[in-house]
């Protein structure tokens, strides 16, 4: 076995968080010192309904191993209905990715409120673990970004 193969796999994980609930939930996780792996990087969007499927595919294209989207709990959207649209969009998109053979565990949606710092941290820990079990994403992504 080569030395490279033994090198620890550090996944790239993009988390889209809505400004009002999940981003605040992540802030709360931070101020409560609830840790999760540094592999997760958060992008702030105003609402989960701002997340374009294109963003998710783009993340995979550029080398992400997992993409998670967090928003307010259904019914709690700051914009009242945004996450309902997001829920349908992501359900369909993830179903499509599953259909073309991308491991379903690489995509996830979680509703995290501003008060759920614990949930945010737990979710991220779980998700990172899942991505670890799936390993490097080889089914989506542009090879040119890898070398």
């Amino acid at each position, binding site marked *: 076995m080569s030395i490279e193969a033994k090198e620890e796999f550090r996944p790239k994980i993009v988390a889209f968080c809505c400004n009002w609930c999940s981003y605040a939930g992540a802030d709360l996780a931070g101020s409560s010192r609830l840790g999760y792996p540094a592999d997760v990087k958060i992008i702030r969007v105003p609402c989960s309904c701002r997340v374009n499927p*294109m963003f998710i595919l*783009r993340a995979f*294209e550029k080398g992400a191993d997992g993409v998670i989207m967090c928003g307010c709990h259904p019914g709690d959207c700051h914009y009242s209905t945004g996450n309902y649209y997001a829920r*349908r969009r992501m359900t*369909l998109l993830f179903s499509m990715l599953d*259909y073309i053979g991308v491991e379903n*565990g690489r995509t996830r949606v979680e509703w995290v409120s501003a008060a759920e710092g614990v949930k945010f941290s737990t979710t991220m820990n779980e998700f990172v673990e899942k991505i670890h079990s799936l390993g490097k994403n080889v089914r989506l992504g542009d090879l040119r970004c890898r070398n």
Partner: protein
Amino acid sequence: MQELIKRAKELLEDGTVARVLGWKAGDLPYNPEPAYFDSTESLADFVYNGFCGANLSKYLIEASKLEGKTLVCLKPCDTYSFNQLLKEHRIDRDKAYVIGVGCKGKLDIERIRKMGIKGIEQISGAEMEDAADTLTISTIYGERSCKFADAMLERCHVCKGKEHQVYDELIGESKETKDADRFAEVARIEAMTPEEKFAFFQKELSKCIRCNACRNVCPACSCRKCVFDSNKFDSAQKANVDSFEEKMFHIIRAFHVAGRCTDCGECSRVCPQGIPLHLFNRKFIKDIDEFYGEYQAGMDVNAQSPLTDFTFGDVEPGIVGERG
């Protein structure tokens, strides 16, 4: 067909319509092309037969900008697209005079070629008047024949029905051609392992040459400028060195038309590489039906499209994994 031409002549003559949008006879037995006819004389070239598969509704986007009404010949399945375009304000109902033309199933020359039939000189049995269910094909290499149904486009085997969803008048008989389950192939893929799914789509999409025929023929892809042509997403419309963009293109295209795609099947008909592109759209349709209730785009102009709608109790995205 004669009745159709006669009626078209009348409507042109009495000034109801300024032009006719139909099909013009080709120079081979199977290649009639979509065409405008603006005089009764020009209608001499008008043809409507089994090879007139093209969905003319998208041409109405341009025709809606012209002076006067355009008579358009729409098959039952084309009328769904017409309605969808109407719903999206892309065409003007007042600028169109819709003649719902009968359909007995449309033929796929690629399927005939795949039977090893070549050097085609003449095909009989493809006219609307022909009652036989066999095509007789004379070729340089001798006479061949095949069942009409075996030469039909995939979409006709899962036909949505003989009913026109919108029309000003109807001409000609239609025939039930459905003999397969619309979602059978999607379900077959769904049942595969992730590895098999990936291999299947990888193989199909490896053929894609990014000619954009699927997009450009698609009545739902009616954007003035496609996101793949604009610089807003830095996504190219042309083939890239790595094949990832083909996947991205087809997924995003299917997503953009999800809830709007009428499943007219034009994408698969025109793909020069025979990629079964409808499998993407139909996956979304199947999911929409299962998750949010049955929905047929283009059936009801006033129905809320599933992706601009929601219910409080919608399934969570996690269902994808749970469904297994």
